[in-house]
Structure formats: C-alpha cells, structure tokens
C-alpha cells in the first residue's frame, strides 16, 4: 500500500522499540501520593530531566523525585501521558510549538477530550510547571477546540468569566478577571 501523503509532517504514534530495561523511579506528588514511572517518560519534562541529570552527574542514587506543585490525581494523568509518549522524538513537540495548526493524534485527542474541563486545566497547568512541551501543545489545542463555535455567553460559561456588571468595580476587587 502506498504511504499516505504528508505523513512525515504528523507526529507518529509511539511504537515500542527493543531497548534497555526500564529504569523505574518513584515520584511523589504535593499531597504525598507516590507513583512509579519510567525515567524515559520523566525525561519528557524538562524540569524533571534537569533534576535527574543532577543526580546522575553526582552519581547519587535516585530514589524519589518530589513534585511539589502537582497533586496526585493530576500527576497520575501527566505520567500516563508521558508513559505513552516516552518513545517520541522531543524535536516533534518543539517543531509543533510554532505551528498554527497542531494535529492531535487520536490517542491524545481521546485522552484529553474525555477529561472534565477542570481536570484539563490542572493537567495543562502541571504540564507548564513541569515544562512538557508536547502536552502543553495538545492541551492548548484541545481548549481552543472546545471553544470553537461558541457564542459569547457560552464562552463566558465555559471559561468562568462573569458579565462586566457582575465584576466588582472597586479598587479592592478580588476577581482574578
């Protein structure tokens, strides 16, 4: 069968490669939950990759990584996404960062659209703190897709932005908006 056109432009789904045995480390969330993850998956996070590199450079045993700004439920989702993408070429995510039209692979689309919007928010925020470019790309695109075709009122409701007259007008206002 002839290969599809433009297939090189789209990120290819992860395919397991024969490689060295997985190096498993523990990851502790801000609320004390401890998860296990493959180091290759954790390397998708620039923040965690720098920490791991620091341990390796000093030849210190890496027993547990602490992620202080992500709760257990969200960290679980992050690690699930990283586990799925641990074989991906990091250059793909970087290249997609500047593209206007990001293509979301089917697994990621299913993974992200099934999440309640509040959990998606936590996931994107965690991806930002952990600096996971690919997850940020797909998350932002998913948010934009959820706003497509929405009216002003629907967008207000989705994004939790009150009407102007519902917002405090004094200088001591506490609305984030």
């Amino acid at each position, binding site marked *: 069968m002839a290969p599809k056109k433009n297939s090189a432009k789209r990120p290819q789904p992860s395919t397991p490669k024969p490689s060295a045995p997985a190096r498993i480390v523990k990851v502790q969330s801000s609320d004390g939950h401890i*998860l296990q993850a493959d180091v290759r998956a954790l390397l998708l996070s620039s923040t965690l990759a720098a920490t791991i590199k620091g341990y390796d450079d000093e030849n210190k045993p890496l027993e547990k990584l602490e992620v202080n700004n992500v709760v257990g439920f969200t960290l679980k989702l992050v690690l699930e996404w990283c586990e799925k993408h641990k074989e991906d070429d990091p250059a793909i995510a970087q290249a997609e960062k500047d593209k*206007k039209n990001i293509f979301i692979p089917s697994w990621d689309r299913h993974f992200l659209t099934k999440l309640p919007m509040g959990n998606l*928010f936590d996931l994107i925020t965690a991806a*930002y703190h952990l600096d996971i470019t690919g997850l940020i790309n797909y998350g*932002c695109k998913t948010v934009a897709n959820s706003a497509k075709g929405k009216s002003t009122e629907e967008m207000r409701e989705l*994004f*939790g932005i009150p009407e102007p007259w519902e917002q405090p007008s004094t200088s001591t206002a506490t609305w*984030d908006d």
Partner: protein
Amino acid sequence: MSVRETEMTLLQRLGQFEIRNEPPKRLFPLLKLPRVVLVECIENLDVLEIIIFSILSKRAKSIAKFIRWNPLEISLGFIPFTDIRLRSPSDRNQHWKIDDENIYRQPQVPSVCDLIRDDGTIGSVFYGYREKIHDEWICKLPELQFVHNLIRDDGMIGSIFYNYRAFMFQVWRRQV
C-alpha cells in the same frame, strides 16, 4: 479504555496508594492559566473567536492584544445589492456577511440586523446616519468603543463600534 479505567487499573496494579476521586469540574478557568499557556490557547482560536474572547472582559481584551493574528479584511459591494463581507486573510474560504440585503435602501431609518457567521449568529448590526446613531444608540449603549473606520474610494463611509456585550457594526451614507 477510558482515562478513568486506565487510572483504576494502574491503581490496582500498584496497590500502594489511593488517589481521591475528584468530582468532575465543568469550568475551565482560562484566565487563571499562566500567561504563556493562555496566549497559546487563544492563538489556536480563529479570528472571530478571538474577537468574541476579547469582549468577554477587560483582562481578556488586554490578553487578546498579545495574540499574533491577521485582522479581518472588510469588503463592501454595491452591485447589485449592498453587500458587506468580513473575510479571514489566513483562510480565504472562511468569510462572514452582513445578512441584510436592504442595508442601504432606507439609510435614514436606523435598523438592526444580525452579523452572521457560517456556523451561527455572533452579534448585531446597527446602521443609519451617524447623527441618528448618536441620538439613538450611544445613550443606550454606554462604554461604546471605536474600533475601525470603513473607507471607500470616495471617502469615509462608516465606523465599527463595540461594547462589552456584543460586536456591533455601524454604517452611514456620506452626505452630498
């Protein structure tokens, strides 16, 4: 397998901790995202969705100013009927039109028609003589802000205004 099922499977497999089940949260507090991520989200919207976002609040407006986007092309046609179209320069197939073929037939009577996008109505259109619009509308619609002038070969023929509730479009005929 759903995210929840995957999670539960892994939880059972690991068997070493419990993660509380969080109630599903329907809201996505977009404006609470870090600025870099927020701008990236908005950049993925199309041009009129960015306009809608920008009128949601003052902060949304200030964020929309950071977005790299191409403004709409506004075209006017007069033959055989008056025809006003908004077109996205990045996608030539995407366009919107003012859905009122009688827009110039009774220019002295301020009227309202809807601004229609391919997938639905997004706002209202107000037109008539400029003086008339000042008399009739500005007092009713405070916080009206000027956006753009429409220029024809023979001079200025109209202006676009908006407030925080709706995108509005105003056209008047040049006095002879």
